[in-house]
């Protein structure tokens, strides 16, 4: 019966409303009813009087419940923005001052990581050619001075360690490579790695090639990956200047900073126009879906939080049930924490879509405003700055209009 009701509701409410408000309320109502059923014999007795057969009274009761949930969902949808802003750090100033340093520390850590990763990559790039040259020189010496000798029973420890790190997808530093090259060079200088019909020579040759080519390549590409990841994280998780007290708040700020830094596109002023420009595009449905999912998780986070806090007090001081209280006291914070992590993950994907929206559809905004498309990045920046000044401060628009003739 419930699935039928939900299917009918989908025709009455938008998908966004259902996902963002109705389902969270529904989940919370069921959660509360389950707890009430567990703790209140009076409620159980009342429930037992409800006949399972579809009497008029039962149908009326069910309709009233669904109607109440729908009203709750409508109310929730009206405060969805407030709930979102709350999770993004719309708090009293004194609380922001207390919490924001933690996010600032997180930002500092990421920036340190970016710096280190960049430095690491630079060192490896410098080492890449010199390492191979050094090994080749040592190999030449060995071939000349010890033409008939090659004693290399097993790979040296440094090479084994490096291979181990590669297998475990760990970072290999320039120092690791330099140390290994120094040790291997000593062996190469006293042995002929090209001695025919020698298993030892084959092993030494393999190690030299592996170190000079494969391990260095792995270390460099791994460092590049790290640099990219660190840059992306910095770009996706924090804005340029202001630090909000929560991770979701900083991710939203990062979107504005990204658009401003890349194109001079002011998200605060132009977001509604960008939305209009995207309407009708399949991509816009993806953005709306991600937003609905985000709203749903935020609503669930707050409703679950309020539910377990309220039940914590009820079970502690009114119902006084030790086992159920302990269950709620332990599971409540864990569920809230898990939901917060999901909210943060959802923010990450949603803000990524917002950045992509700016990348892909910003020119549609200009078309909608009947303004000429810029020729290059610098003229685009000037265009958006002009549009922003016009919209925000009412300054005169110095750009010419461009009207397309109707088809």
């Amino acid at each position, binding site marked *: 019966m419930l699935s039928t009701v939900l299917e009918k509701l989908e025709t009455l409410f938008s998908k966004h409303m259902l996902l963002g408000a109705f389902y969270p309320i529904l989940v919370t109502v069921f959660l509360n009813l389950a707890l009430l059923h567990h703790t209140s014999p009076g409620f159980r007795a009342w429930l037992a009087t409800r006949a399972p057969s579809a009497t008029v009274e039962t149908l009326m009761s069910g309709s009233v419940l669904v109607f109440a949930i729908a009203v709750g969902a409508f109310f929730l949808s009206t405060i969805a923005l407030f709930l979102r802003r709350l999770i993004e750090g719309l708090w009293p100033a004194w609380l922001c001052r207390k919490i924001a340093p933690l996010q600032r*520390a997180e930002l500092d850590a990421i920036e340190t990581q970016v710096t280190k990763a960049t430095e690491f990559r630079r060192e490896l790039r410098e080492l890449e050619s010199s390492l191979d040259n050094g090994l080749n020189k040592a190999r030449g010496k060995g071939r000349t001075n010890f033409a008939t000798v090659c004693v290399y029973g097993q790979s040296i420890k440094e090479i084994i360690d490096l291979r181990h790190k590669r297998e475990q997808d760990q970072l290999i530093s320039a120092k690791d490579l330099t140390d290994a090259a120094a040790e291997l060079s000593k062996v190469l200088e006293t042995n002929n790695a090209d001695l025919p019909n020698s298993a030892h020579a084959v092993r030494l040759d393999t190690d030299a090639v592996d170190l000079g080519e494969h391990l260095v390549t792995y270390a460099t590409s791994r460092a590049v990956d790290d640099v990219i990841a660190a840059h992306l994280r910095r770009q996706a998780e924090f804005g340029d200047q202001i630090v909000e007290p929560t991770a979701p708040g900083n991710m939203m700020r990062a979107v504005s900073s990204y658009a401003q830094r890349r194109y001079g596109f002011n998200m605060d002023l132009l977001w509604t126009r960008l939305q209009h420009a995207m309407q009708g595009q399949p991509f816009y449905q993806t953005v709306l879906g991600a937003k609905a999912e985000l709203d749903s998780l935020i609503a669930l986070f707050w409703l679950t939080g309020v539910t377990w806090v309220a039940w914590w007090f009820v079970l502690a001081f009114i*119902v006084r049930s030790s086992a*159920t209280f302990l269950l709620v006291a332990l599971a409540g914070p864990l569920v809230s924490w898990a939901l917060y992590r999901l909210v943060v993950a959802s923010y990450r994907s949603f803000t990524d879509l917002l950045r992509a929206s700016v990348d892909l559809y910003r020119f549609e905004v200009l078309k909608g405003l009947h303004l000429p498309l810029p020729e290059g990045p610098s003229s685009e920046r000037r265009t958006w700055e002009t549009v922003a000044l016009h919209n925000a401060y009412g300054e005169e628009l110095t750009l010419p209009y461009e009207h397309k003739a109707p088809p």
Partner: protein
Amino acid sequence: MSTNAVKAKATKIALWITACYAVISLGISAWNYASVDSKPVHYVATRPLPCNHRIVEADLATPRGVNGTARAQQLPPRTTLTGKYTRAAIAANQYIVASTLRTDPVIARQDDGRTVVPVALPAALPAGLVDAGTYVDVVSSGAIIAPRVRILAVTCTSAGPCAALVRVRPEVAAAIDEKAIVAIRTDAGGDVMDQKGWIKVGETVEIPAKPAAIWTKVLDYVPLNTVLKLEATEKWEYADGVKCGPDGAVANKLKLDPLSNVAPIGALIGRIGGSTATIPKGDESGIFAVGSFAVVSVPAAGPLFLTINLAPSQYPTTTDTIKVTIYESKP
């Protein structure tokens, strides 16, 4: 402050909050377990139950404060109590503890030559009309073969009708046949509630509005299941310049706290057991209203006390008294 220092401080605060929350939650859980969950829950009696009373469904009530809560689930099934017998009298609203009940009634041996025999109860007899301690006639073929005998207990089996256990002389026991049944007394010999069935106990006593202690002792000892009739007259000053009779001030508008809520302010109230200094608490105090007329079946042996229904701190300074005459039902 450096990044690591900020993170370390935040971690420390988070750990403190988590630890405090865990300790508080565990403490509350343990406190609830110790004070609520670990203690067994009992039904309470809906009315005074005499010794050897056979528990029926209507005798059991869920205690206040438990009804409607999770603790109600801990109540034993009613079927584990019904059909069992009380070992001692239980006052109304007192706990009925399963372990204190017996599967059979306790019949004391007496060396007076009388024997205990079962007599069938009429099938049409309303439930609860007769109980242990009720006086009845034993009738066979329309003739009373044993007048005014006291029921020791009522026994019931699933096979047949309930029977009353009575103690009678051997010749009467021999006369009790299959047709013998119990009959409620209605003859001139005196129903237990009949005026002619009462015996005056001592002289009329005066109960002062301002007692020497909390209660005024009236009788040293009243045996179990004794039925007393109390009649009270006169008036007393229950507050400055305000008088009422033994039935109390029904329309009282003064802010006075009574000892008990079973009777109005200023009414004559009584209790069996305890001492002259007992300050009873709640509805389990065993206090009964006397007023100008009362008949009381004594639920537990002990002294009889009477007093005015006021808080001890509000006892008046008057020397007014209420005169009380006490009767005992004829054996």
